[in-house]
């Protein structure tokens, strides 16, 4: 039995057009699944269709094996953590968390016990009497979470729950959410546009584009084998450079791109000789080297000129002009201060050594 099952789900809005387009999706019981995509890709609408805030034009929604397509939200066994938390401003924390049980007319004692337990779980026991306006962003987030899980839903829907938090808090909450998921054993469906958030927390990520799922897999699968330049660029950073198939071999091809010749694994794709391809090269799989430090003529190397270095904590991002409209990005782990001092200054010519195994080739030319 699937926790969530969406079948040929379609939803249009008068102004925005078709936002969810023939979407079919199965979520297993207990899974932590993430809908990932840029704003406007239909991920939030999908979540709202599952929650029952919207009704589909066609297709069906079922939760825990029951068709709920036409069931109003208040009769669905799902709960939602809203992006802006949507706490009731006129109730205190305790009343917010207990609301769902209060409207269901549960006994007062049971309510207070469960509310206390939920607040303890999110570490807000001492704030029970506070009003939402007296809480910090992170605390509001926890109240929203407690409010949603206290009813023990079959599925917990999280609509960009961390987007309003600052970076540090966000990371802490990611860990906590993951932990909570394991502890509760509830199916989590997260909607986010933050790829790192998706990768940190999810068992499975669905990348959405224009109302459709374009790739579905574990974070690692998606990162290593993006199905399209769109995915490659969306998950992490990729340098997308145009190339041309020079020769084909058994399970790899030789691609001429700019001034280099790469051997690229085909990964089952059929890419015939002289076909136009796009290569996705991860910045961290590339190394900047001084022009003289390697024998001239090594084919799998791009040449260029350093534009600028950007310091990113433990990592240095270097932008390099290789003659394409967009600079080529290279990430270098900085292990010591000395290493930072050894970098070539902006303006110097350089060579780029790419880990050929990590390159992914896509048919056709794409403009990122």
């Amino acid at each position, binding site marked *: 039995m699937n926790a969530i099952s969406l079948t040929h789900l379609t939803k249009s809005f008068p102004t925005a057009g078709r936002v969810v387009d023939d979407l079919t999706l199965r979520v297993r019981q207990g899974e932590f699944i993430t809908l990932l995509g840029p704003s406007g890709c239909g991920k939030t609408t999908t979540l709202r269709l599952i929650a029952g805030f919207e009704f589909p034009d066609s297709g069906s929604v079922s939760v825990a094996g029951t068709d709920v397509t036409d069931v109003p939200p*208040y009769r669905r066994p799902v709960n939602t953590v809203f992006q802006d938390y949507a706490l009731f401003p006129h109730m205190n924390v305790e009343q917010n968390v207990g609301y769902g049980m209060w*409207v269901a007319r549960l006994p007062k004692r049971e309510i207070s016990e469960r509310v206390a337990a939920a607040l303890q779980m999110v570490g807000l026991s001492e704030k029970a009497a506070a009003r939402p306006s007296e809480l910090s962003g992170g605390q509001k987030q926890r109240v929203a979470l407690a409010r949603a899980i206290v009813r023990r839903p079959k599925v917990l829907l999280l609509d960009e729950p961390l987007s309003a938090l600052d970076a540090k808090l966000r990371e802490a909450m990611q860990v906590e959410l993951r932990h909570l998921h394991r502890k509760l054993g509830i199916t989590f469906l997260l909607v986010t546009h933050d790829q790192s958030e998706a990768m940190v927390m999810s068992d499975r990520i669905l990348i959405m584009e224009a109302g459709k799922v374009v790739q579905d897999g574990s974070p690692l699968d998606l990162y290593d084998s993006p199905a399209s330049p769109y995915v490659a660029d969306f998950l992490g950073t990729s340098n997308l450079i145009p190339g041309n198939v020079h020769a084909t071999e058994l399970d790899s091809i030789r691609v001429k791109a700019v001034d280099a010749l790469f051997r690229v694994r085909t990964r089952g794709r059929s890419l015939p000789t002289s076909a136009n391809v796009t290569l996705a090269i991860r910045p961290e799989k590339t190394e900047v080297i001084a022009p003289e430090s390697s024998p001239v003529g090594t084919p799998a190397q791009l040449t260029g000129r350093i534009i600028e270095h950007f310091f990113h904590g433990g990592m240095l991002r270097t932008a390099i002009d290789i003659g394409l409209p967009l600079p080529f990005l290279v990430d270098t782990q900085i292990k010591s201060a000395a290493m930072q001092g050894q970098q070539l200054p902006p303006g110097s010519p350089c060579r780029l050594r790419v880990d050929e195994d990590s390159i992914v080739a896509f048919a056709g030319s794409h403009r990122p």
Partner: protein
Amino acid sequence: MSMVGNSRQRHDGIDIGLKLFTFMVLAALYLPIVVLIVFSFNDNQVTTLPLRGFTLDWYRRVFSNEDMLKATYNSFKVGLFATAITLVVGTAAAFAIDRTDFPGKNVFRRLVLLPLVLPGIITGISMLNFFRVLGFTLSLETVILGHATALISIVVTQVYARLQRINRRIEEASSDLGAKPWQTFLYVTLPSIRTALFGSGLICFTLSFDEIPVTFFLTGRDNTLPMYIYSTLRKGITPEINAIGTIIVVASLAIIVLSVRLLQDEKR
């Protein structure tokens, strides 16, 4: 340097001028009210200066003037009923404008808001025509209907403005947490628009309590207080009117202060 100093001085001059002007406008606003109150205690039939002496006689007369008391009672009745209707119908109208789409919605919106700027006399006369066609007997009930129609727009604008500002997600959250639509309305939506309802209800009541043009055309045997005052005003100014005016002023101030306090308490 000196230039900066000069310009600052000039600006201070403008500031002081502005504040003085504000003070004078406020003084002018309250001058009639002060006059009203002062003459209600003046021991003279004619309302002219100089003041003659202090008396509570006018108040005694107010409380023994049966017609005036009856009219006051009628005004309370009209105000309460009209306010209740405007709150119910006006809130529904605000919801309809905010949340639904139906053919003719724009016409509806314009029509329902029209009385806000429409001279009361037009509302009064059109409804007089209407009641006459229907063969209604003019009475306090027709006045109530007239007031409600004229004042609904106030509730609509206030509640609509509030609805636009409230976070729709909290209603979804309520529904998500298992609240049936009526529960969501009662426990989440209504509390969110409560102050708007309270405020507009207060305004409607006071405006209805004070209404002349609509009442003028729609009232039957019974007088409301303003109609009573209106007819006595032409008959002659007596400090009795000042006395009842002072009572109204004090009562309305008390209501305002009370309601402001009440709303503040709730926010806390």
